[in-house]
């Protein structure tokens, strides 16, 4: 399941983010009639065909795996989490329809109608991400039922959909899709720019992607900060694990890196900045921050994994912000071509965005362990009892690995020169 999710996450994120970039470049094409934008839109729409196909099948797989791997969880919680899943199903349905129209309709619709068809894709893509994340938020902060003899009764699926963790987690996850897509695309085109510096289409692609990244990353870091403070108040166990804080402290220091030792209850070799944790979490240098000693030790997540992934996420995210800032200053928001060192930095940013996204995902998942739904169902209880699950698991992992490689190869081989030329009638300069 974890493998499927980590795999699905990448393609789903690109599937949410890429339509936005497409809508932008196609809009620019209609406005400026610059054929570079048209070629970009056609190239990216071929990438979207690949990504959406893979995203759709890995999504189908996930909906099955929920039942195949976690039948007890679904039996217990299906009546609640099913509603956001159903909403996601409809959003995905609409998305699939318009993706079909968009990808195959280049020559069947008027240019403007075709462009307009990208809007439902952008909107339903974002909504899909939001609904699915709402389910994950519910697993972190389950509400909308009362527990009677271990069974959920008085179910209120609407309350379950709007669980306490929902707003911040939904924003953070949806933004992560845009951040990742923007920097991944920017990274590919920055590499292309280094190879062929004079290419105007490459420069245009890089400009659009970096603009999107420069808008998304500050927002993302802001939302990330809000959700960390949310954790400090509502999910203190997860927060203490993220910060590798074993003992409750007033004026707590923030610990960067280091090796948390869950047996010895200490974090070694970390860089400590005094008072900063109390300030960040509660805006007061003397505030008390609850450490893991304030909670039941038997239901503690794997602290080292959560803490290091958390730092990895924050570190990569901050670096992305620096790269975006550098780009904005050095190129006057894309008016100039980036010089070689900046281009190299942008090339690495795609990888960093990937790391930030997957590490963030690990923080959410590992930070919730040993629960599948915090406080009432453990992962081990939710898991399937069907035989040969291990075998199926390895099989699926292998299959995904193979598909990921093929997909990456094909995506990198997409060349703009293979795309159709823009319709000649539209090539005159736009009046006004």
């Amino acid at each position: 399941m974890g493998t499927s999710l980590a795999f699905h996450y990448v393609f789903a994120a690109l599937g949410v983010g890429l339509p936005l970039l497409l809508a932008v470049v196609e809009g620019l094409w209609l406005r400026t009639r610059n054929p570079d934008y048209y070629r970009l839109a056609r190239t990216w729409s071929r990438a979207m065909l690949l990504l959406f196909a893979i995203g759709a099948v890995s999504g189908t797989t996930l909906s099955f795996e929920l039942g195949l791997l976690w039948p007890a969880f679904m039996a217990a919680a299906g009546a609640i989490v099913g509603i956001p899943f159903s909403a996601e199903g409809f959003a995905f349905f609409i998305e699939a329809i318009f993706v079909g129209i968009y990808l195959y309709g280049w020559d069947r619709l008027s240019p403007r109608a075709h462009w307009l068809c990208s809007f439902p894709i952008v909107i339903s893509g974002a909504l899909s991400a939001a609904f699915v994340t709402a389910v994950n938020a519910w697993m972190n902060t389950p509400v909308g039922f009362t527990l009677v003899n271990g069974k959920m009764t008085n179910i209120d699926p609407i309350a379950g959909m709007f669980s306490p963790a929902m707003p911040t987690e939904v924003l953070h996850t949806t933004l992560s899709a845009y951040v990742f897509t923007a920097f991944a695309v920017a990274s590919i085109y920055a590499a292309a720019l280094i190879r062929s510096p004079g290419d105007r289409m490459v420069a245009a692609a890089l400009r659009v992607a970096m603009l999107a990244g420069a808008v998304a990353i500050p927002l993302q870091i802001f939302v990330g900060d809000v959700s960390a403070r949310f954790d400090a108040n509502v999910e203190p166990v997860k927060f203490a694990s993220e910060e590798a804080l074993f003992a409750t402290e007033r004026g707590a220091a923030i610990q960067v890196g280091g090796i948390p030792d869950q047996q010895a209850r200490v974090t070694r070799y970390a860089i400590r900045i005094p008072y900063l944790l109390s300030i960040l979490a509660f805006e007061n240098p003397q505030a008390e921050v609850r450490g893991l000693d304030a909670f039941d030790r038997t239901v503690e997540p794997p602290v080292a994994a959560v803490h290091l992934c958390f730092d990895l996420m924050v570190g990569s995210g901050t670096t992305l912000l620096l790269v975006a800032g550098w780009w904005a200053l050095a190129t006057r928001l894309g008016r100039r071509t980036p010089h070689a060192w900046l281009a190299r930095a942008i090339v690495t940013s795609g990888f960093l965005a990937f790391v930030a996204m997957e590490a963030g995902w690990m923080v959410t998942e590992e930070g919730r362990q040993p629960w599948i739904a915090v406080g009432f169902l453990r992962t081990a209880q939710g898991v399937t009892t069907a035989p040969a699950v291990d075998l199926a698991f390895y099989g699926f992992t292998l299959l995904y690995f193979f598909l990921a490689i093929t997909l990456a190869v094909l995506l990198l081989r997409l060349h703009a020169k293979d795309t159709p030329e823009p319709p000649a009638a539209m090539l005159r300069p736009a009046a006004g």
Partner: protein
Amino acid sequence: MSPQTLVAFVAFVGLGSVALYAVFGGADFGGGVWDMIASGPRRDQQRELIEHAVGPVWETNHVWLIFLVVLLFTCFPPAFAALATGLFAPLSFALVGIILRGAAYAFRASASFDAGLSDFWGHVFGIASIITPFFFGTAVGGLTVGNYAWNSPFALGTGVLAVLLCAQIAAIFLTLETAERALREDFRRRAIGSTVALAVMGAILLTLARVTSPETFAALTRPEARAGIAIAMLLGLLVLALLFARRLLAARLVVMLEAFAVLAGWYAEQAPYIIPGTLTYQAAAAPPVTLEAFLWLTAAGGALLVPSLLLLFRVFKSESQAP
């Protein structure tokens, strides 16, 4: 609405989506089957036609399946858990088929720079188009026989039946996708052949039930189920007649009805049980508040969905229907 009516409503929506998946998803799978065994002087044109017909709609066609899965785990959670555990093996195989099929479809189109690679994914596409409906069929068959015996003779027969049904639906749909006479005739002949094969397989399946699983046979010959099967058979004959008479549009309509009748017969065979012998629809149902929320959501989603679907079909399926 009383809880019983709610459950009946949701079950109806669920069966409806099974039916739509069987028809549209089935047409897709069948397209893959015909792609794989494309033959004769117009082999390449056949493949092109299939590609052209399937391309814009295949993802949409498969969302019916996601919808069905979501409906099951939202509205009948214990049934979903039981099915997923009991039918773990065939559902996993079907999933592998779905993954490979989608990937192969996209990869084949994008790998046009290398004929070998493109051919390889073309084969994967064909094989995956067969294994997916086959294993879904065995899952349904296993459910019907009881004990989730998806590898029993009856269930394996159901798998073959499912593949043939897909092939039949696809061939009939494809006759309407081209204005070219010779190509249309190719698929008309294939439609006739697969209809006959389907009838033969249906007879074999009944015999299998009689020999290997008397209880299943008894259930299949209950009056309600018998009516469904009889209607499906009559509609099958009608399809054959319409194909011979070259009334292709009518044949398409009737073949859809035929698929619905097969499913209705299957439902009648095991009603009121969702899992034969152990779990009824009523017992498996989620609390009324969830069912109600689901139905509202379906109404709202449907209000957006129907116009979008109509747009999709209008953009891609309008001009090729010239008889």
